[in-house]
């Protein structure tokens, strides 16, 4: 049963990824990206990461993708006749070959890795989100605070960048 769901989520997410980079209309690309994000959230559920799956749907599909679609609608883009760089398409072969090579090396690795304390049964006793919360506010407290400062900087930067310049700013060239 898990294999069937995994095959479905994997195939649809790969197909949606390919559609995202190959469709002509940017809005259709956004819809394909939405399908990709939803199916990747399904993969997270299969991996017993329910909290990450829900956060993926709320933040990625609910906030980030809506931001993309807002900007797409705001800019009123024309559909381009030439929308690919044909010249750079050669690099992909090299990158793909390198990735396959790295995968073969990594998957044949003899090192198994040390098992951590959070087995699936142990996590399910207190619930996935509670386990993540306990760990995030104890061991990962400093990265959590850093991400908070980072998000504040991103918000302020986005507002300052996208603000309509006032006429006084435009005329004051001597500064």
């Amino acid at each position, binding site marked *: 049963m898990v*294999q069937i769901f995994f095959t479905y989520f*994997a195939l649809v997410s*790969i197909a949606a*990824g*390919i559609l*995202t*980079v190959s469709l002509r209309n*940017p809005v259709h*690309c*956004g819809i394909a*990206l939405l399908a990709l*994000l939803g199916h*990747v959230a399904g*993969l*997270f559920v299969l*991996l*017993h*990461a329910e909290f*990450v799956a829900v*956060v*993926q749907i709320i*933040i990625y599909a609910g906030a*980030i993708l809506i*931001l*993309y679609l807002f900007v797409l609608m*705001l*800019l009123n*883009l024309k559909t*381009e006749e*030439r*929308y690919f*760089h*044909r010249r*750079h*398409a050669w690099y*992909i072969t090299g*990158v793909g070959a390198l*990735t396959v090579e790295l*995968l073969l090396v*990594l*998957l044949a690795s003899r090192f198994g*890795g040390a*098992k*951590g*304390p*959070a*087995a*699936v049964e142990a*996590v399910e006793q207190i619930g996935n989100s509670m386990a*993540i919360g306990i*760990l*995030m506010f104890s*061991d990962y407290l400093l990265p959590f605070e850093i*991400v908070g400062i*980072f*998000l504040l900087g*991103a918000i302020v*930067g*986005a*507002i300052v960048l996208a603000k309509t310049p006032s006429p006084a700013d435009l005329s004051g060239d001597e500064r």
Partner: protein
Amino acid sequence: MVPISAYVVVSAILFVTGLAGVLIRRNFIIVMMSVEIMLNAANINLVAFASHLDSLGGQIMALFVIAIAAGEAAVGLAIIIVVFRGKLATNVDQINLLKW
């Protein structure tokens, strides 16, 4: 039980797809969507290895990656709006003033 190599293969395919999008698309917004695909591929890897190694650190790192993707989207889209307002261009090969 699905082996971890299956997840790693899916993640690698998605990453190469996103990289292809960054390299060959001309529209800046689609380039940023391709970056999101690559971040998602990295997230699949993090969560798959967290499940494989019985550790929650990978899931927390995936949450941080999602937060950083949100910041990247906000700042990148603000930059697109500024560039579009001044130049009426959203193609990456028309935005070349910094190439000198």
